[in-house]
């Protein structure tokens, strides 16, 4: 229904002292579920509020389809927003809350009733209509707030960490339900979160933000498999990807301690004799831990510092010449102080240059 496009959108606060968003370019496809993911304070909420029209960009433009909406007020944009703390009107009942946007838009009463009924059935809150927000549980408030957004049939849904105030179980439930709703309604949605699990499981695509800029926009798979920068690589995945400094020379990466690891020579575009400092990135879950010596091509040797059994899997912290490297393995027989070899496959290794960009 609506394609959203941000072009070079920048937002300053306090006369330019704070740059909350720094020339963001972002395309959200019609009917897409796009997640804005990033650490606290990176400017996700600001970006969302810019799309909603609650803030106006200091620079750049926002388009809905072909229409420039940069200067439109929120009421002229036909967006619906779900706030982190739900922002239900405390003096209105659930019904009045849901009815409010319709009333403001002069929807005739019969149609209002119809749409309220439809929406509340969809969200299973038919029985709560006469209660005040103060009498509702967190999940019920959440649903009411969603209902208020849905009932309008908006062109765009904006959700700002809508699940963060819920307990873990309810959060899982609502995650599924939200995703189902969005599929059903097929409304272009921007969803803000700092929880990467949530982002990975819900988003059609994820835009990773840091310090006011978008670092990478990609589908969840790709984001995990081809993080374009060390920052994204370390942000996605838990525990974060290991980065080990070294020098790339002649198709191998020489790490400290004299270990060298062969990397795919085919991608080596530079001359063979050139050497360059690089970081070798391997995700903890891509390591295997071997107590005895191994004949694998790619192995790093170190001493076990700690072993943290976490039930499903175990985290082994290995000291590799002063760098702490984590391996996430199903089971292990190693103990603190053991010499171990960490092996990995070629396609699980990432090389980043000095600036933190992924080498092809």
């Amino acid at each position, binding site marked *: 229904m609506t394609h959203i496009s941000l072009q070079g959108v920048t937002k300053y606060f306090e006369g330019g002292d704070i740059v909350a968003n720094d020339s963001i370019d972002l395309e959200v496809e019609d009917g897409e579920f796009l997640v804005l993911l990033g650490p606290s304070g990176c400017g996700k909420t600001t970006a969302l509020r810019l799309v909603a029209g609650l803030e*106006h960009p*200091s*620079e750049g433009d926002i388009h809905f389809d072909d229409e420039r909406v940069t*200067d439109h*007020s929120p009421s002229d944009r036909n967006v619906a927003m779900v706030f982190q703390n739900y922002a239900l009107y405390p003096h209105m009942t659930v019904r009045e809350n849901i009815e409010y946007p319709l009333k403001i838009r002069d929807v005739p009463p019969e149609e209002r009733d119809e749409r309220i009924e439809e929406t509340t059935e969809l969200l299973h809150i038919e029985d709560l209509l006469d209660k005040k927000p103060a009498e509702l549980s967190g999940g019920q408030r959440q649903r009411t707030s969603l209902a208020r957004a849905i009932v309008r049939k908006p062109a765009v849904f904006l959700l700002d960490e809508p699940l963060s105030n819920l307990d873990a179980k309810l959060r899982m439930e609502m995650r599924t339900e939200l995703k189902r709703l969005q599929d059903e309604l097929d409304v272009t949605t921007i969803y803000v979160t700092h929880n990467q699990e949530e982002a990975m499981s819900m988003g059609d695509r994820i835009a990773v933000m840091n310090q006011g800029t978008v670092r990478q926009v990609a589908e969840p798979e790709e984001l995990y498999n081809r993080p374009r920068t060390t920052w994204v690589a370390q942000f996605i995945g838990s525990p974060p990807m290991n980065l080990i400094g070294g020098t790339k020379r002649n198709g191998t990466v020489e790490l400290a301690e004299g270990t060298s690891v062969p990397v795919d020579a085919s991608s080596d575009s530079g001359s063979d004799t050139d050497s360059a400092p690089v970081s070798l990135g391997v995700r903890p879950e891509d390591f295997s831990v071997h107590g005895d010596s191994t004949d694998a091509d790619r192995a790093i040797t170190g001493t076990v510092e700690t072993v943290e059994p976490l039930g499903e899997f175990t985290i082994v912290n290995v000291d590799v010449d002063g760098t702490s490297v984590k391996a996430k393995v199903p089971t292990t027989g190693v103990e603190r102080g053991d010499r171990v070899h960490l092996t990995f496959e070629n396609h699980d290794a990432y090389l980043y240059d000095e600036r933190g960009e992924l080498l092809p």
Partner: protein
Amino acid sequence: MSIQETLDANVDADVDWEKARAILVFLLPGLTLFGVFSVGPMAYSVVGSFFAWDAFEMGAFVGLQNWSETLTDPLIINWDNLLAFTFPMGALPQNLLWMVLHVPLSTVLGLVLALLFADLRGKRILRSLVFLGFTTPTVVIGLVLLFVYDPQAGVFNELLRVVGMEGQVRNWLQEPQIAIYCLVAGGVWVQTGFSMLLYSSALAGIDPSLLESARIDGAGPFRRFKDIIWPLVKPVTAVVVIMGMIWVLRIFAIVYAAGGPSGGPNHVYSVLGLEVFRAAFSIPVEYGKAMVVALIELMFALPLAAYIARMD
């Protein structure tokens, strides 16, 4: 870049137009009335205090003449009597004397009553009884005081008779050297209800477990008051004191009802408000003097206003 920025700033200003108009629509009606009937007249008094007045008509600029005349007017300050401490001393010293007595007494009494009632059953009724006076119109307070101090029908003189001080019975509000204290007592009677109420709500906010743990630590009632209760009710004291001072500065109806527009026999308990009223609205009309006296009142109120503004 800088051109771009100015352009953006203009766009921003454009966008905010709708908001600016809304702000104006909200502010304008209220602020207009506020300006015309409060701020305007105040400014008028400030300016007018430097001009000559022919009844209600403003005349020529006279500089500080109104001020010097007013400050040497025995009705405002009677220096001779003030030095001898005999009434009438003039409205300004009398008003200040009233404040000096009234504020500490009503504050302390309010706190004492609040503490006394704090953990008694039926404290709500007790409090209402004490607070009732504060809700009474001040003009009624004045009339009630007139009644209380009446030589025949007054309950105060009856009390003297009962305790055998028959010889002291008199019309207390006609006694030049004593009358003002009798009125101050009446003011304290009223204001104590107010300060008691404020202190009570502050005391209700004290976590009882604090007091219990202090008791377990072996703190006696005095220590408990000094170490726990007082620090917590201290902020309320500022409010009580300021409200009390403003109350005394504005005092008018009590004095008028008890002693008429002259403020008792030979003005012995006249106050500033009364002098403004008489100067401005009785013959001969002295608008300049009225404005000066009102401004003197304002000068005492301004530090209080500054204090309130800082508290915010």
